[in-house]
């Protein structure tokens, strides 16, 4: 939406100091609230950091959350680069999870080497389908994608609820969850894969690696392929797309299908990686946080990974803080996340004018002339 004037700041300031200052501001304000609640803000913050990175299992949890955020962040970015605002990550993730589970149950006798790819295909396909319908409605009928994707979130949630009390419910169980998947379908935990690195046990699993690969795919697709180029032209200037012989509708469909597939694959982490079954509300709002991740990551693959890592750390470190400090509830942790999004994501340029004054480089200006 907005593009910014090129900056004259040294690169280190631009990519290092500014985000650090923004994060710091968010944490200072959070610290004030914690202080008001009668806890020691410094202790809280150090708990947060050590809770996120301080020991092996914590890192594993951080990476587990990061994985979800990479998937949903990518989902938002794929659509956004084509000028589409996909609020439906949540619903697409639900459908993806359903697809993954169905594949895992349906083909449970196959070996993992076949079964897992089938799960990936099913998950991506159902997620994609759930995004493709709004995309198709937009292309054919001009239906506003923000509305349709919101509506599809609600529909997906109701559908999941139906499946888990109905056809997919674990036999005899009181809870709303499906049968467990077979162990062949389970994604290997990272601590097994990277045992030689001495990685501690935890929920992080191969889905993280898949997520990283998808970031690579995203970067290559957007910048190094014809489809990616076309999709970006459609996003920036649909009229120019027409001029260049690019079908805007095709761009919209491709963007949303990829977007939905990414969101759908979040289920890999949850269903195949951690829960080993489908539970209600397994998306837990990760789809929405994906919006913040995508924007904070500037729709850039590395940026998305870093933003996802930040949110992963906030989730895990926040939980740790809540474990340890009675006055800090999960609500406060949510508030801190909100403040971080606000300062690091939306108010990112707050310190820029001041820094411009400090770091402005007159020689460079003259050279440019």
């Amino acid at each position, binding site marked *: 939406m907005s593009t910014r004037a090129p900056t004259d700041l040294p690169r280190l300031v631009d990519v290092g100091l500014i985000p650090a200052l923004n994060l710091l501001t968010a944490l200072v304000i959070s610290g004030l609230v914690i202080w008001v609640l009668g806890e020691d803000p410094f202790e809280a913050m150090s708990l947060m950091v050590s809770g996120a990175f301080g020991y092996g299992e914590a890192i594993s949890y951080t990476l587990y959350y990061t994985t979800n955020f990479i998937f949903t962040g990518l989902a938002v970015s794929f659509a956004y680069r084509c000028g589409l605002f996909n609020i439906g990550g949540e619903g697409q993730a639900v459908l993806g999870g359903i697809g993954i589970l169905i594949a895992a149950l349906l083909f449970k006798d196959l070996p993992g080497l076949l079964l897992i790819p089938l799960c990936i295909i099913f998950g991506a396909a159902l997620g994609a389908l759930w995004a493709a319908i709004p995309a198709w409605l937009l292309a054919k*009928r001009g239906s506003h994608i923000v509305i349709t994707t919101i509506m599809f979130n609600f529909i997906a949630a109701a559908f999941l609820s139906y499946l888990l009390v109905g056809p997919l419910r674990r036999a005899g169980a009181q809870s709303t969850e499906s049968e467990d998947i077979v162990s062949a379908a389970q994604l290997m935990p990272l601590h097994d894969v990277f045992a030689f690195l001495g990685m501690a046990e935890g929920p992080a699993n191969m889905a993280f690696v898949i997520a990283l690969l998808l970031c690579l795919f995203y970067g290559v697709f957007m910048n190094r392929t014809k489809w990616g180029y076309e999709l970006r032209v459609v996003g920036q200037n649909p009229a120019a797309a027409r001029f260049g012989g690019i079908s805007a509708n095709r761009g919209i469909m491709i963007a949303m299908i990829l977007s939905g597939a990414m969101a759908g694959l979040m289920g890999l982490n949850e269903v195949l990686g951690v829960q080993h079954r489908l539970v209600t509300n397994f998306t837990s709002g990760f789809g929405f946080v994906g919006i913040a991740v995508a924007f904070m990551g500037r729709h850039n693959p590395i940026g998305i990974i870093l933003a996802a890592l930040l949110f992963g750390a906030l989730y895990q470190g926040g939980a740790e803080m809540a474990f340890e400090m009675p006055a800090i509830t999960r609500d406060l942790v949510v508030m801190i996340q909100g403040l971080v999004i606000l300062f690091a994501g939306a108010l990112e340029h707050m310190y820029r004018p001041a820094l411009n004054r400090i770091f402005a480089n007159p020689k460079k200006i003259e050279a440019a002339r």
Partner: protein
Amino acid sequence: MSDLFFTLLLLCDSALRLAAPLVLAALAGLYAERSGVVDIGLEGKMLGAAFAAAATAAVTGSPWLALLAGIMTSIGLALVHGFVAISQRGEQIVSGMAINIAVAGLAPTLANAWFHLNGQTPILEDGARFTSINLPFANALSDVPVLGPIYAEVISGHNLLTYLAVALVPLGAWGLFKTRFGLRLRAVGENPGAVDAAGISVHRLRYIAMTIAGILCGIAGTALSIGLSAGFVRDMTAGKGYLALAAVIFGRWYPVPTFLACLLFAFADALQGQLQGTPLPFVGEVPVQFIMMLPYIVTVVVLAGFVGKIDAPKASGIPFTRDR
């Protein structure tokens, strides 16, 4: 026949009640977007206001002070969003999200700190709320055929804020289309450059629009916590902010159609409640989850079938600067 009529009246009554906060939030979104600021933070503003109003009502016992508190809180949040979107030229969508998330955390945190009921405020006495008002002659007139029941069942018996919400629709339309302020506001959302060239401050106008959005969301939140219910509950907006945004788009950024869109959503919701457990013709008993999808499916179908392509105010979401 008369049964059907009665059911319809009930649905309309219910729809009007459910629509009130939606309408207020949607008008807020409409004013914000008409001025060129995208506001997906309606949800957070409403939630913040709902909490402030309920907390104030619990402490002071006065619904009027509660309304004031709700409005002030919501304005505060609106101005934060304004600061990001207008002065700082930050990402508006991210800012809206951030406000939604921060408030969802902050409100229960404060509730816990002040009332020790964690997510909630105490349950309010009637005197501290906006309770429903029976309009004059509602009972006397209810025997008049057709119009009587409509008056008594649908029109009478809502709380003050619901009536306010309905009254604000024509007022909002008038303000937007019949006043100097409205002209400038619409212009700033379409082409801020033109407004700037006419010597009017784009930033000021947008801040005013955000303040209006704040007031409206404030009333909406107050209506939620001390009008329609008797206290604040965690996450009580339950997605209404997003639905309101959808209503604005549905209504093509015009107040009356937006109002109708809100009514449609609310009506479908009420209908959904009514249909649960009732066997439907041809299909028989439908799992309740499918009935719950109804409002959303209706929305998509109406949108795709009848509304078609919708253009937002051109400058919506784009920060303004003089240097291109």
